[in-house]
């Protein structure tokens, strides 16, 4: 009994100071750290790859004619790094930033607008000639209307919005 307490005391005294003075002294993150993402509208070709792989669907691309508007809902981001893994242009990259707490969600939303060119033959908007070929995965098939859902690609949907189902079809439930 006494021996155990003595041993525990030795461990406690031997440990020294282990806490960090965190908010007062900055913490350095390791080089591989996946922090908040940042992006560069000048590099982005609007291919939609990042939006297609993002698991919580926090990158949303809207095509408005010749403009592609990409919105990042970073409040939903789980820092999985899939978006910058697939981006062919390195237009998205991670930063060291991890202090994203804010009282206002809109601080974490950002968007970029990209001007697209229009193909003279088919009328689709694109950025440069080989933009789509640059995308690393061969299973990617473009995000034009009717081209979705083929091989690993899904139409980009907005973040979850709940629909209220008012009229309920009830089945008569059998009692167990």
């Amino acid at each position: 009994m006494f021996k155990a307490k003595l041993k525990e005391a030795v461990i406690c005294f031997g440990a020294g100071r282990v806490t960090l003075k965190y908010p007062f002294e900055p913490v350095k993150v390791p080089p591989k750290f996946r922090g908040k993402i940042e992006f560069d509208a000048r590099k982005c070709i609007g291919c939609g790859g990042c939006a297609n792989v993002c698991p919580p669907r926090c990158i949303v691309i809207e095509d408005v004619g010749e403009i592609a508007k990409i919105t990042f809902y970073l409040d939903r981001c789980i820092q999985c790094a899939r978006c910058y893994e697939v981006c062919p242009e390195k237009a998205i990259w991670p930063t060291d930033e991890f202090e994203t707490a804010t009282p206002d969600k809109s601080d974490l939303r950002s968007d970029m607008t990209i001007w697209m060119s229009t193909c003279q033959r088919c009328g689709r908007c694109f950025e440069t000639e080989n933009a789509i070929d640059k995308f690393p995965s061969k299973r990617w098939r473009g995000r034009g209307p009717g081209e979705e859902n083929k091989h690993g690609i899904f139409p980009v949907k907005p973040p979850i919005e709940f629909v209220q189902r008012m009229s309920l079809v009830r089945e008569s439930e059998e009692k167990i």
Partner: protein
Amino acid sequence: MVKEQEFLMELWTHFPDMLQDLQEHVRNQYVATIPREVLPAVVKHAVKQLGARFVITVATDMRQKTGDYRISYILAFDKQKKFLVLQSAVPPDDMKITSVTPDIPAAGWAEREAFDVMGIVPVGHPDPRRLILPDDFPQGVHPLRREFAYNEIFPQEQNMPPRKPAPEGTTVVPLGPFYPTLEEPAYFRLFLDGERVVGSDYRGFYNHRAVEKLGDSELNYNQIPFVAQQICGICGQVHSCAYAQAVEDACGIETPIRAKYIRSLLLELERIHSHLLWVGLAGHIIGFDTILMQAWRIREPVMWLMERVTGNRKHYSSNLIGGVRFDIDETAAEDIRRVMDKVEQELKAVVDAISIDTTLMARLKGVGILTEEDARAIGVVGPVARGSNVPIDCRVDHPYAAYEYLDVQIQVQDGCDSWARTMVRVLELFESIRLVRKILDDMPGGPVMAKVDHELPSGRIGLCSVEAARGESHHYVLTGDENRPYRWRVRAPTYPNLQAVGVMIMGLELADVPISIGSYDPCFSCTERVETLDVNTKEIRIYTREELEEMCKRKTWEKE
């Protein structure tokens, strides 16, 4: 037939006409489709006579494919290292199956869940209440049917929660309904006679996050590992690994051997920090905060290590279908070795001190007894089972990742109490450190990601059990079209373990209940508040968290 398949031979001789299309599916999995009428008999025979362990049931809406619903019972034959899936069609106009729960208590929750999510009625179930749906969910709506959209919400309905009546003359103590450190808030109603527990009732699943529904209807194969890792704040790697391996098994994707080693490495590191977390929490629950401080101090370098190696403290985001996303290079390996040496040395000192601490023994020995028969009947997994002398560990029983090359030693204790479970975890810590070193020494070179450029075939079944720190985590995947599973079923280790709580806390004093519940699950630190209601005088008394902690601490001091 070879010896490993003897159990199948025996099943076959008992039910010769029923097991016609029994087929070996992947290396260690058999699938048989049998008529619904004989399903309970076959399950019962397998469990009672052949020593199978009930894992889970999966209810699937197959109406788009076959016009029927389907119910699958998954059984594990641990000695033979095999899984057996027994599945039956359930026609939509007569959705009844005969419940096996009266004979196999382990199936109790799974069958209640099948009713909740799919509407399959287990006839003869001893406790046919709702399990995972809220009590005010509309009748006749079952969320895992295909027509139910993932983003629907419903007008609230009021109906009385079906509750278990308290025995005559007892006091009801609601413990809960929210435990901040469990992912799902849990609510135990304890029936007390004086200070002793004479019965209990559990209501959980308050925070259903619909991950299975998202996997079936929204996310694609490579997005699910990231959502799966968010299922648990501690065993993230476990869930994403189990899911990825289930899909790889189902589709016959050959994972590179180096990727398998990296998965095992991360799993073992995860076990180390999870067990250390639990040791600290257990100390905290009984008011012995020295253990909390020291265990967590030792744990922190492991977390920093994970951040350096994977890029994040907890959610490693390492798995995709076909392999892992990053390699472990020489500097990372050096880091891991160094941290392991330090952790081992410090852990030894702490274990040395606490293993002779009589206060700790007085609080843990003989508390929360779960006998070996009960453990087997309820089908508990992980350290809870191994602390009750049931030597199951799916790293050995159903080897996955690189465990077939690693020679894992199962740590078993026969004390059946909280102390035994603590000892199992402590021994496993040293075992994990040994495994990490072995993995780093043995890791072969090569790629870490298989090339997957074909479309994944649909209609295949894949199963994978992964040993998390708390027990066996089981994932079932039925592949589908549109680049996503048709059905994805997750069974976390706490699911069977929670069912044992009722037995475990029977006859205990109220002050021993938190540590008994805490001893099966590393994710339990403190009870927020306790309310007691005297059934005779209708007097309500609310215990705050401080008071309850005070009660637990006082008991520790008395023992000292």
